């Protein structure tokens, strides 16, 4: 069997950590540049923004306003079970 132990040490040398270079992942243009760095393979977080709500958060908000009765988690379990039996 081949000795594979050296592989990871060798491959690891190809990478550099973004955070070690003081990189801040809050700029889209900087992220694009880092992703296309011809000098090496960067690892770390390229881009991150927390101000954009997720689809599930927006859906919950919309359902709360439009269809309050569709909030299944607030219904008694028996009600849901009875409903499911109608489809069995």
């Amino acid at each position, binding site marked *: 069997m081949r000795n594979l132990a050296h592989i990871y040490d060798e491959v690891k040398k190809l990478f550099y950590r973004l955070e070690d270079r003081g990189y801040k992942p809050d700029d889209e243009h900087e*992220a694009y540049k880092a992703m296309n760095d011809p000098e090496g393979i960067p690892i770390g977080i390229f881009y991150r923004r927390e101000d954009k709500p997720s689809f599930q958060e927006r859906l919950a908000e919309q359902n709360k306003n439009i269809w309050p009765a569709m909030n299944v988690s607030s219904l008694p379990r028996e009600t849901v079970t009875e409903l499911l039996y109608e489809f069995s």
Partner: protein
Amino acid sequence: MLDPRLYESDTRPDWCPGCGDFGVLAALKDALLKSGKKPHEVVIVSGIGCSSNLPGYIKAYGFHGLHGRPVPVAVGIKTANPRLTVIATAGDGDEYGIGFNHVVHAARRNDDIKLIVMNNEIYGLTTGQLSPTSRLGQKTKTSPDGSIIYPLKPLPTILGAGGTFIARTFSGDPKHFSWVIQEALKHRGFALIDAVSPCVTWHTYMTK
């Protein structure tokens, strides 16, 4: 921290000795423990490929789906039960080829799922064919004279699609990998983690 054995499965991985996916599995378990997630709060979804066997090797809810389709399954689970932590795991053929359209739209919608793509630049399970991230000139069974196709750049593509968390890490650096996953778990929205995960059997540039 939770008991380290909490996520230990009874099933042993059947990956090749030296496969990068062992490091991914270890980092994922570590990140879940350090994030205080309990197995009943977590669902791991996968597609088809060597890496997509991962849900079987971790004691949490799992769904081994169709080729290229872990993202729509994960989105469905998260939408039905937003209290769950939903993580999709797959390979580069699965997510950057067959199912890449789903990844683009999940990024656009900012679906609250985490996607770990184990990128080895080749189709490994089917014994070494060209994948979307294979390098120019790379010799595979389907490119015996070397690939003449430029590789896909998935990270800039997802950035352009509106992705809100985009990272890359290396399976041979489990501490860094675990940290990236922990940060992704804190993120409120879609997180793409491109995991460089060497295939020691079919992608010989790393192993010669």
